[in-house]
């Protein structure tokens, strides 16, 4: 406990070392340095990214994508299940596909 107090005091001293500090000052030529960068046009891709990332644009684009998807789903003709099943069974018969079980006898064919 006796060791703790000097340690705590030292920590408090360190933690309080920023008290009374002055604000650091920026270079007096800051504006002169900024000015040429302001005159330069932004690269096209940054401008595009900034435009697309605007909430109104981003939400509108998402809504358009969702609507296009819905339109595709609704406008495509429904697949006839019977035809699809028939095609599958023909395919299964052609390639001798059947369910394999561990209890099946081993296939010794060359």
């Amino acid at each position: 406990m006796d060791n703790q107090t000097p340690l705590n005091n030292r920590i408090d001293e360190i933690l309080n070392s920023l008290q009374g500090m002055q604000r650091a000052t920026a270079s007096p030529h800051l504006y002169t340095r900024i000015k040429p960068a302001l005159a330069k046009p932004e690269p096209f891709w940054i401008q595009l990214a900034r435009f697309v990332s605007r909430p109104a644009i981003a939400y509108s684009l998402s809504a358009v994508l969702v609507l296009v998807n819905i339109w595709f789903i609704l406008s495509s003709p429904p697949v006839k299940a019977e035809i699809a099943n028939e095609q599958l069974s023909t395919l299964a018969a052609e390639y001798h596909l059947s369910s394999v079980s561990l209890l099946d006898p081993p296939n010794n064919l060359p």
Partner: protein
Amino acid sequence: MNEKDFIERLRNGDESAFRALVDAWKDRIYNTCLGLVQQGEDAEDCTQEVFITAYRKIGQFREEAAVGTWLYRVAVNRSLDLLRKRSREKQHGEWIDFQHPGVQLEKKQDAAILFRAIRQLPENQKVAYQLQQMENLSQREIAAVMDISESAVEGLLQRARNTLRKILITYLDKNK
């Protein structure tokens, strides 16, 4: 002139308004960047980027926040980007002790130890603690800058102080 008119002038690309904005805020923004990145050159770059971003993005500025709050927010984000970039590039690099020019002479050594400990804080705690210590912002102002509640700021500051204590205990034990 009120802030609304001032922002309108900035939006219209009025150079004298922009210059007034830079003159009024450059030291606060530089000090914030410096506290977070802890390096003079990087803090200069960060300050320049903040004002260039402000000039280009003033059209997106929402007027429910004060322009100063917005500038602080841009400064914090730029500084954190710089720190992340630096930690990717110099994963195992040695840190040089940071000496803030505004610290009182007799406290410089302790402040360097504290700044070294601050570097080890998680991002949110670091931002909240630095804005309070370096810029003397109130919890309400910090909450506005970080876009979180005041109670969240209080929690962050408490956790930051506790973490700093633990880091300093370890440091002092090692350097007896």
